[in-house]
């Protein structure tokens, strides 16, 4: 076991996947820069050469399409979008192409591409440099969507993605980069094994979340513990295909449910969580109405005080849980 932070863990994931598989390569904007994607790909170009770590022109759509094309021809590219906001320009290749080629062409071919979208927000960056659009991609059949919340997952999910027989959207969050933990040595990972897990057990209320929202929820659970409220916190991990079984089973025990998500509310992943619970748990077992915490219905602001008001906090979650009763 070694101690690893989330940002470094991503880098380890790249290193493992690329060392293990000569057909795995990385491509995207900023990959030869010392700062573009934080420390998460530091010096990979030096390690693997600029032919396997390709920095590109400012062409999100063609770059992503090229990765899809290489994937359709036996490679396992990881195409990196330093922000999910810019990745919108590549949506056709992700949603119309990568997600559909297998099905549309009769199941004989698979775009084995990993699309890495980074959530990079805060720091007064504003509306076009802050978005978390995982809910869009979770909506689209054919894509697998992973969001790591821990350092081990940050590494292992990237490996799983690189080794996946299906196209994968791997979404990491810069706010998680310093989360550190002890991790076992890297190994191959079957993407189909990545399912929701319980990160903290509790009997009073179930919280489900992904990525940075898991950290917030765990922090809230700590706060609530002091009030004698025991929250169960489930890390969703795989948003598409999404398996609600564990969450439903938990809510059947706790009777209360809160979804926490770093995206917007309407048609967002928190809506999916609440709907999955509502559909799958008998109302008779619910001690109260489920709820969700998301961003406010607004683009991200820039000015410091508004930014502070915009993003959910552990305290906000704890307060909501308190309101939901025991």
């Amino acid at each position, binding site marked *: 076991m070694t101690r690893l932070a989330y940002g470094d863990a991503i880098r380890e994931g790249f290193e493992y996947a690329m060392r293990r598989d000569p057909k795995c390569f990385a491509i995207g904007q900023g990959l030869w820069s010392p700062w573009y994607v934080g420390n998460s790909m530091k010096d990979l170009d030096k390690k693997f050469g600029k032919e396997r770590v390709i920095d590109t022109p400012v062409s999100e759509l063609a770059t992503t399409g090229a990765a899809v094309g290489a994937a359709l021809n036996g490679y396992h590219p990881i195409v990196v979008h330093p922000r999910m906001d810019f990745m919108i320009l590549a949506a*056709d290749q992700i949603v119309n192409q990568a997600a559909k080629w297998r099905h549309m062409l009769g*199941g004989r071919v*698979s775009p084995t591409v990993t699309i890495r979208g980074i959530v990079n927000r805060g720091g007064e960056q504003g509306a076009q440099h802050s978005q978390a659009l995982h809910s869009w991609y979770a909506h689209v059949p054919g894509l697998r969507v992973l969001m790591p919340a821990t350092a081990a997952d940050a590494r292992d999910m990237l490996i799983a993605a690189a080794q996946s027989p299906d196209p994968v959207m791997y979404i990491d969050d810069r706010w998680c980069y310093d989360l550190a933990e002890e991790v076992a040595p890297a190994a191959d990972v079957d993407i189909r094994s990545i399912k929701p897990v319980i990160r903290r057990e509790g009997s009073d209320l179930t919280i489900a979340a992904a990525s940075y929202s898991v950290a917030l929820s765990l922090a809230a659970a700590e706060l609530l513990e002091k009030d004698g409220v025991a929250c169960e916190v489930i890390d969703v991990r795989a948003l598409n295909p999404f398996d609600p079984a564990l969450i439903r089973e938990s809510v059947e025990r706790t009777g209360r449910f809160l979804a926490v998500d770093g995206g917007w509310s309407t048609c967002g992943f928190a809506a999916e969580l609440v709907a999955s619970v509502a559909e799958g748990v008998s109302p008779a077992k619910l001690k109260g109405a489920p709820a969700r915490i998301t961003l406010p219905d607004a683009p991200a602001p820039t000015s410091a005080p508004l930014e502070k008001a915009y993003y959910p906090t552990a305290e906000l979650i704890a307060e909501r849980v308190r309101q939901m009763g025991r």
Partner: protein
Amino acid sequence: MQFEDKLGYLADPRQLTEALDLKNASTDALVAFYRDMVLIRRTEETIAELYTAKETKTPVHLGIGQEAVAVGVSAHLNSGDRVYSGHRGHSHYLALHAPLTAILAEVMGRATGASRGMGGSMHLFAPESGFHGSVPIVGATIPIAVGAGLACKMDGKGQVAVCYFGDGACEEGVLHESLNFARVMDLPVLFVCENNLYSSHLDIHLRQPSNSVARFAEAHRIESRVIDGNDVVAVSEAAADLIEGARNGGGPGFVEAVTFRWLGHVGPNADIDVGVRRSPEELKQWKERDPVRRLTDALKEARGVDQSRFAEIDAEIETEIADALEAARGSDFPAGNVLIDYVYAGGRS
């Protein structure tokens, strides 16, 4: 906007109606071209009939009149190469000698189809023959072919990727991004624009300032050839050059093949009412520039090939198509489970 008629005689249907100049192409190769072109045309006519007879509803974009392009290009490809296409892709598939039954079955939505009945006319797949996929989002396969070229380069076996697209696709930004990317990375990609002067109902002069699209290749410093797309010999020569260059590490090439479709944008009718300059007269003139007839005339005149040879080939093709059609008609639709099972590898889990 002042429209530039850069193509000149190449876009003038009253020109280039004479027998082809066969240069030093071998008679055998030329007769094979004839065969391929007729097979494409007759297959598309058969598809038109299936559509008219309501044996299928899937949208069919027929390329009758444009057969020389795919045939001329494919002459220089082998199955290790990777061909991509768009909505009007039958000829690109057939010119690679991909299975005839499979395309007819696919158009009819059968499980024996090229895409196992999941794609119809607009989504074809026959990688064993080098046809790696067509899809109808205009321009979508252009960067995908570039990625295939990247794979070819990484493989290091001298293979190339080819992408067919139309003049309309040149209006999609992704074409320009892809040209730059392929150039910067020196990828072995042949961009083949079938410039048929139309994007659905709109003549190119309503959409672009010039009727020649090779200017985009030039802007991206990619070697290009602008040719009569109804001259299979000219297409073959241009493709040979550029493909050889690409195989040898010279990077991408761009062919602008000027041609015209005889039928409407979609479906089996000529819809001569749609499109500003697409008059019945103009269409009639373009039919005088028939790529098949011009080749036949030349083979007869310059190489003394007898009419009976063509008749023989025609008859073979009729039998081939009839057999394929029967096989396609006799096959099943996809089973219900594949609707979900094909979404993810190994099904949903």
